[in-house]
């Protein structure tokens, strides 16, 4: 087995300023391995403040972990040679959330497509470069003659985001991190972008890390799902298991909070919900203890480790303490080998 990209006990802490002693734990002891041979779609789901964007930046090498390691083909990102770093840059690509800010207002949109070609030497001639740009634009359902030569503000959000997908495709990467790729795109165009992500996975063998706050799209697209709560994994495993029979109280709360477009499901409850504490600082114990309906004394003493409740799922909750603890660096059930 070759592990292409791996987070090993990665922790990222943001310090306050010089006069601010408080520091924020953005990501806490996170481990994830992306297999190079079997392309998969892993969804990382979390609300704001769950650490999902920090995770994306760590995996992209845009920031480094405070503790733990990020590994590319077994080598730590910080100590890689220049040549390996170049290979990493090509292999691991990204689609960002905001399909407007990623375009430099000074240039036409062609700039984001021609730059990687020039920098990675992807084409021998101008004609070859143009041919591969046309190819990737068509692959995401855009007509090159209608998109090239324009400025970002002349295109719709959906078109802009598809150009970013095309840009990622151009580099023929092996992993694409998609950080909320559809949250700023209109509903009717969302499906098109998700479909092109799935096509990339199935037909081109690209692994996708789909980072989102939206469980419904995560369910539709992914094989494996990771649920984050304030920097920690609370539930991880096969997407059918996690979505259909959630085990962690937080996953259950999250799923019951989604308003579904089916009139049979009743969403709102009449009784007033208990107000959420605005800020609760927990130094030890389960981070969800303050909001958990089934909280016990042990939850406040120490944080639960991941318990393997199914062959393809693990949950970080003491309700399942009878199940065996997940050990080792590869905390990724589901991909049984």
């Amino acid at each position, binding site marked *: 087995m070759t592990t292409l990209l791996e987070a090993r006990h990665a922790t990222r802490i943001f310090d306050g300023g010089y006069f601010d002693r408080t520091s924020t734990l953005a990501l806490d002891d996170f481990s994830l391995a992306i297999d190079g041979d079997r392309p998969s779609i892993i969804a990382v789901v979390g609300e704001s403040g769950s650490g999902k964007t920090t995770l994306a930046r760590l995996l992209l090498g845009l920031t480094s972990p405070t503790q733990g390691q990020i590994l590319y083909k077994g080598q730590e990102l910080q100590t890689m040679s220049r040549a390996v770093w170049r290979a990493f840059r090509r292999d691991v690509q990204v689609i960002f959330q905001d399909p407007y800010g990623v375009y*430099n207002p000074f240039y036409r949109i062609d700039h984001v497509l021609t730059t990687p070609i020039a*920098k990675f030497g992807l084409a021998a001639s101008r004609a070859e470069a143009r041919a591969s740009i046309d190819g990737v634009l068509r692959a995401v359902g855009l007509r090159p003659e209608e998109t090239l030569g324009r400025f970002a503000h002349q295109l719709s959000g959906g078109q802009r985001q598809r150009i*970013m997908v095309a840009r990622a495709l151009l580099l023929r990467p092996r992993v694409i991190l998609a950080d909320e790729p559809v949250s700023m795109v209109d509903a009717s165009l969302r499906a098109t972008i998700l479909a092109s992500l799935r096509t990339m996975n199935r037909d081109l063998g690209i692994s996708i890390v789909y980072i989102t706050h939206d469980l419904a799209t995560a369910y539709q697209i992914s094989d494996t799902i990771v649920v984050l709560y304030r920097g920690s994994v609370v539930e991880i495993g096969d997407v059918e298991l996690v979505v259909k029979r959630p085990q962690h109280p937080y996953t259950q709360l999250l799923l019951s909070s989604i308003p579904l477009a089916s009139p049979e499901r009743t969403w709102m409850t009449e009784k007033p919900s208990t107000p959420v504490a605005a800020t609760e600082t927990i130094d030890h114990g389960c981070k969800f203890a303050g909001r958990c309906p089934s909280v016990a004394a042990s939850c406040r003493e120490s944080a639960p480790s991941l318990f393997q409740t199914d062959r393809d799922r693990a949950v970080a909750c003491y309700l399942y303490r009878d199940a065996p603890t997940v050990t080792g660096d590869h905390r990724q059930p589901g991909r049984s080998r």
Partner: protein
Amino acid sequence: MGYLRRNLSLVVGIALLSALGLFVIIGHLVVDTSKSRPLSAPAVQAPSLAHPFGTDRQGRDLFATMVAGTPLTLRIGFIAGMLGVGIGAILGFASAYYRGRLDAVVRGVVDIGLTVPGLLVLILIAVSLRRGLTVNQMAIIVASLAWLNPARTIRAQVLSLRERGYVEVARLSGMSGSEIIVKELMPNLLPYLAATLVNSVSSAILASIGLEVLGLGPIDSPTLGMTLYWVNFNAALINGWWWWWTAPITIILVVFLGLFFLTVGLDEIANPRLRRVI
């Protein structure tokens, strides 16, 4: 053209500076600039047909002096302003983009440098150098402090730009730090850099005139500041030789007003929020 009609400051600024340019060019055609040397004309003459701006006590024709001196003063301003913005931009871009130790050093030097009165430092430098400065040496002395302000303001601009999505995309597209600075950040700051340059030029001119009036300038060049030094030296104000100081002060006024309107106009381009809604 439609835009120029709305950006009136830019038009006024360009018009004033062009008028000055025309004055110098036409002046060079109609008058012999060697008359700006002492003893080339009768001393202390009020304006007349032969000497439209009058003459001074050393026998310089003031019209010729203005024609020869205005470009010299502007040259000091431009050299010093360019050097200042150039050095300031390199330091500002590099320290804001790379952060770390470089940023700490640049920020520290700039913060300290800006609290020290500039003219005092310039006087010390000019005094410690030997007499007989050339115009270019004068420009370099002024430039030695002119980079501080551009470095600080450009750094602040870059700090806000470097968090943009397109900078990260460029990094992921394999661009190096220096390429990102030149190709991604710089183009978006061009109007701002232009405004900073004009600003710097006008402060450099002000600083050079200040030094020259104190007698610390290029003593044998007929710059506007040196002319004011001679005005002062010969007590022209008390002696009622009004034409001697009228000409240089009018030109200095036109220079500063022109540069001021140009900055305001460029600012409006650099900062669209100032753009008036019509």
